[in-house]
């Protein structure tokens, strides 16, 4: 990757709550190349959505992007950019597709108007031009008879259709990067596949880069080229998708992969990762995953692991990288041991 489209360095987004400082995103660095699709994976509460909002600087008080964080995009640092320039970037250069097509559209406006609004805000021009562009875009995202559909309200459309409209809004200005936050989670599996296929098509057509945020490794497997796994506000593993599925290194990634159902699986129950994500106001010392990890040993409690280079383009935040023999010592995670004791 010569010159990445987006380069995030040491991004830290903290929330100053009554219960203490929530370090929801805590030193995240990654890059996305032009036309690349990157998956950002993790459970609820691991910081992936806050990372996405931080990229567009949409984090609301009491949340704040900490000084020292850098988000480089098109030769600018988005962290320090003034609000007006930032607004010009949102929707035009970087845009976002939200999770819930039911609520991501304003119930009181025609869908055509909602797409046209994005055009008018960024591009100006007349109402008719914007409307025309909206209809075009509805056609591009595969909505039948777009000229009529543009006059309909969100409640008249099915979930899949609405998500297509949301995608049309995000792509109408032909942005360089689209952040898709769980774009298929709220949809039926068959519709999910259609939406992922649509995103893939549009990406090839327009050369858009996509940051696909999901908790579903199945979605990742079929859509992205590179995967970033987050846990506890940090990146714990990053690899090409094939590499990750074949040689997952971090025990958390391993756990996520084991928790996926497989075709022809005979086990009755799916494997789960015991315990829950700790609260972001109190990340555990040492490795943040240590009490849920089946390999953890004393070093994991004492020493916060750095991102170790495992292979070319593959990093993992786990001490197993330097003490691989520990992988043989599989045991009940501390959280389970504590529960039993």
């Amino acid at each position, binding site marked *: 990757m010569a010159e990445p489209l987006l380069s995030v360095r040491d991004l830290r987004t903290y929330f100053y709550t009554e219960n203490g400082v929530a370090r929801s995103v805590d030193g995240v660095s990654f890059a996305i190349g032009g036309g690349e699709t990157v998956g950002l994976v993790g459970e609820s509460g691991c910081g992936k959505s806050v990372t996405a909002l931080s990229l*567009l600087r*949409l984090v*609301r*008080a*009491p949340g704040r992007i900490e000084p020292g964080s850098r988000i480089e995009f098109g030769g600018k640092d988005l962290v320090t950019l003034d609000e007006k320039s930032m*607004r*010009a*970037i*949102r*929707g*035009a250069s970087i*845009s*976002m597709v*939200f*999770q*819930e097509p039911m*609520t*991501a*559209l*304003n*119930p*009181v*406006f025609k869908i055509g108007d909602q797409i046209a*609004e*994005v055009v008018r*805000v*960024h591009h100006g021009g007349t109402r008719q031009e914007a409307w025309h562009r909206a209809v075009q875009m509805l056609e591009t995202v595969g909505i039948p008879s777009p000229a009529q559909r543009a006059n309909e309200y969100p409640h008249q459309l099915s979930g899949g259709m609405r998500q297509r409209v*949301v995608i049309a*809004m*995000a792509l109408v200005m032909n942005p360089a990067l689209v952040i898709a936050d769980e774009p298929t989670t709220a949809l039926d599996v068959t519709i999910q596949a259609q939406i992922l296929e649509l995103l893939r098509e549009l990406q090839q057509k327009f050369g858009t880069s996509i940051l696909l945020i999901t908790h579903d490794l199945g979605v990742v497997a079929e859509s992205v080229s590179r995967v970033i796994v987050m846990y506890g506000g940090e990146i714990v593993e990053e690899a090409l998708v094939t590499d990750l599925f074949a040689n997952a290194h971090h025990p958390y990634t391993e756990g996520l992969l084991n928790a996926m159902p497989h075709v022809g699986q005979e086990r009755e129950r799916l494997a789960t990762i015991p315990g829950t994500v700790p609260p972001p106001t109190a990340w555990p010392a040492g490795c943040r995953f240590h009490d849920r990890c089946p390999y953890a040993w004393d070093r994991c409690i004492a020493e916060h692991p750095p991102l170790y280079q495992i292979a070319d383009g593959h990093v993992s935040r786990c001490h197993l990288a330097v003490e691989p023999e520990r992988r043989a010592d599989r045991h009940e995670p501390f959280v389970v041991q504590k529960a039993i004791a």
Partner: protein
Amino acid sequence: MSGQPRSALWRLVHHRMARWALAVIALLILAALVGPLLVKYNGAEQLDIVALKNRPPSWAHPFGTDQYSRDVLTRVLYGARISLAVATLAVLLSTTVGVAYGLVAGYAGGRVDNAMMRLLDGFMSIPRVLLLLAVLTLWSPVPLSGLIALLGLSGWFGVSRLVRAETRIVRAQEYVESARALGVPTMRILWRHILPNIAAPVLVASTLAVGNVIALEAGLSYLGIGAQEPTPSWGSIFFDGVEFFAGNWWVVLFPGIAIVVTVLAFNVLGDALRDVADPRQVDVARRLPESTLTDPPSMSALQPSENG
């Protein structure tokens, strides 16, 4: 699709109580607009201070005359103009201020919201009537525009509370977040994405407020510190008659009826609008007695609204 939800306007017009209220209000507005053109006198005219003083209702003077020999019907019709105009403009003012204040506080959130709401708590701790009494006692005679301004500026606190709460709910909706993420400017988000989605409860509150302000203005005029003589407002006509109430019941009765009917009509319309804005609620209210006869009400039927 036959399951298309009816429009809010359709539901309003087909709401029985709303139809009555709308008819009454329409009649009142008509009376206020064209009534004064149809009568022979003007509201301040003293016809014949000796011969036509304190006459009971007759064909010539259907509502009688007062102690200054003024035609009470004429005065009530002119009074409708004053009372309705003062109340409507005052509510328009209070709603505008309240909506603006509530939108800003609710959308900004955090410390700005906190400061604005504490300031509002301060305003709300002052009793409205007491404040108006104090100011109007000092500012006498008050011009109508001053009266409107005072009634409006002392009445926006409740609306802004409501708007702030509704704004906070709508702000958290994904379509607002989405508009932000797509670069829509803040003013446009407030105007196009939030305001239309909070309009229904604001409309209900404003309608109820009109009735409230009419009663309030009548009260102030009754005390002689509202609309100033010789401008007739319902409250001041009433005030003129009170002194001789035992003999001249008509001077008090007709403006009194006008006040009661108007306040009632606006309250009923406000309630009807509330029903219409949340159709689930009216359905529950109407169906519950029947359904309890046939089968026990389900938990969901007892819930006043889906998003409670």
